[in-house]
């Protein structure tokens, strides 16, 4: 073999490998920057008061975002109540039943909805829920987040169910088990880990949505005692504090950003841990 050509090939190989590594690192840089800045600015402002106290009035130092954090969890809970049953059922329909025309339109609709800007969701739910209820409420916030979760969960559930080998369905049906029982207790049970992953990822995604909550949950300086009242949420609180002119509130906004970032990161890491394959080595 020609040594000069061989050396040229080796160089090309090294070059492409280097470029691929550089691009991968470049993709990670924004993540690193985000973590660095949020940690740097937020860590100083995080203290026990931040997690336990309500926001203090303008001018008074201190206070915290306890109601915002609890509010986020409340909203996610409401969203899951709407998003999980509807999304999972839709995914089961798409995967297990045969209505070609309807399935095509459902998939198309879900894909379009996945791309709708979140502020549009907020405006629509404002018109549909807030106006008839004559006020902002936790219900409206939960509904808008839940509606955003539905197409996401529907598609991931469908994908995971399609991965279940047909052999299990046939084996169950051959035992004389009715189809709906087969789907629920054999197929869905086999794919359960994947479905839970999809739900957790959808929750992580909607946890950070701010724009729709501007029109629905609206925010609250106090604890929410009635789901028909406005409710505070972490992204909303961060937004309100960040655009304010007060230095103290800016620091608290950074702390809130850190809390939100950690929450989303913990959900994602938990998903990775829960779905790891314990019996094989990952590359």
């Amino acid at each position, binding site marked *: 073999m020609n040594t000069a050509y061989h050396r040229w090939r080796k160089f090309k190989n090294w070059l492409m490998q280097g470029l691929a590594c550089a691009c991968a690192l470049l993709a990670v840089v924004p993540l690193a920057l985000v973590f660095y800045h949020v940690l740097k600015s937020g860590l100083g402002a995080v203290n026990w008061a931040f997690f336990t106290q309500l926001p203090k009035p303008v001018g008074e130092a201190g206070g915290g975002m306890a109601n915002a954090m609890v509010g986020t969890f409340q909203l996610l809970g409401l969203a899951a109540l709407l998003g999980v049953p509807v999304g999972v059922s839709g995914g089961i329909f798409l995967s297990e039943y045969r209505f070609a025309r309807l399935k095509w339109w459902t998939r198309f609709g879900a894909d379009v909805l996945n791309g709708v800007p979140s502020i549009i969701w907020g405006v629509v739910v404002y018109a549909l829920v807030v106006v008839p209820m004559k006020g902002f409420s936790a219900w409206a916030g939960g509904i808008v987040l839940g509606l955003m979760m539905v197409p996401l969960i529907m598609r991931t559930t469908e994908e995971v169910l399609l991965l279940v080998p047909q052999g299990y369905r*046939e084996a169950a049906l*051959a035992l*004389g*088990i009715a189809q709906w029982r087969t789907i629920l207790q054999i197929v869905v049970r086999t794919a359960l880990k994947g479905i839970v992953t999809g739900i957790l990822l959808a929750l992580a995604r909607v946890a950070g949505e701010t724009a729709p909550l501007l029109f629905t949950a609206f925010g609250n300086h106090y604890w929410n005692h009635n789901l028909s009242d406005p409710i505070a949420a972490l992204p909303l609180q961060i937004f309100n504090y960040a655009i304010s002119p007060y230095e103290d509130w800016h620091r608290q906004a950074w702390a809130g950003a850190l809390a939100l970032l950690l929450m989303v990161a913990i959900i994602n890491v938990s998903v990775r841990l829960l779905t790891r394959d314990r019996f094989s080595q990952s590359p």
Partner: protein
Amino acid sequence: MTQEQTSPILPARPLPRRASAAPAAGSGPVALTIRELSVSFGANRVLKGVSLDIPAHAVTAIIGPSGCGKSTFLRALNRMHDLVPAARVEGQVRLFGTELYGPGVEPVAIRRRIGMVFQKSNPFPTMSIGDNVTIGLRLNGLRQRAELARRMKQSLVMAALWDEVADRLDAPALSLSGGQQQRLCIARALAVQPEVLLMDEPASALDPLATARIEDLILELKKDFTIVIVTHNMQQAARMSDYTAFLYLGELVEYGTTAAIFTHPANQQTEDYVTGRFG
């Protein structure tokens, strides 16, 4: 007896003759009566008017080269083609007198009377060994634990698996070897106490030792069940079946006792297949 078209130049190639539907003389009660069974997938006609009687408490083997319709025939017997929208089944299948494709007949009820074991063993992965065996019973409404445990042990004993798994019924089903998994699938099918057991090449994915165990198992099972087994392994059919049907390109070429089919077949094509001249 055999019609042959001879010519001075080409070798003799007989026209496939529609074989007699009745099994050989001396058979007892008939489990499945099949008349003019035809299965089409869209425009493709896979089974063309197959008629035969499957005797009770015996092993009937369906042999033939790849693509001749053996699996399609088997799946038509427990209405598995209902799952395929493009499939069309014509003809009559009667199980001890009940017309399986009659109006108002529930496929689910049929499948409780006719069980199936597949080529690739498929124990449910999220369940333990014991749960796998009792799943058919539990999802059909049986709740009492004592009864479930009794039926589970009975099925595992019948499937010759009890001794190996008695101490680890809670272990995941996938921790068993290939042959054990297939016997687990057989136990699972037996637990619902079907009258007929259909087996689609059950030992084709197994090593010879495991295959031998499955074959011994089938010979034991025929005392209590009617067994129809599809196999591409002619020697296996010769070893363990009482009756053999030879299918070719969707048609039943010949059907009779295994001894007759393998030692003095009536049809030239059958003889060519069992002696290995084609297929």
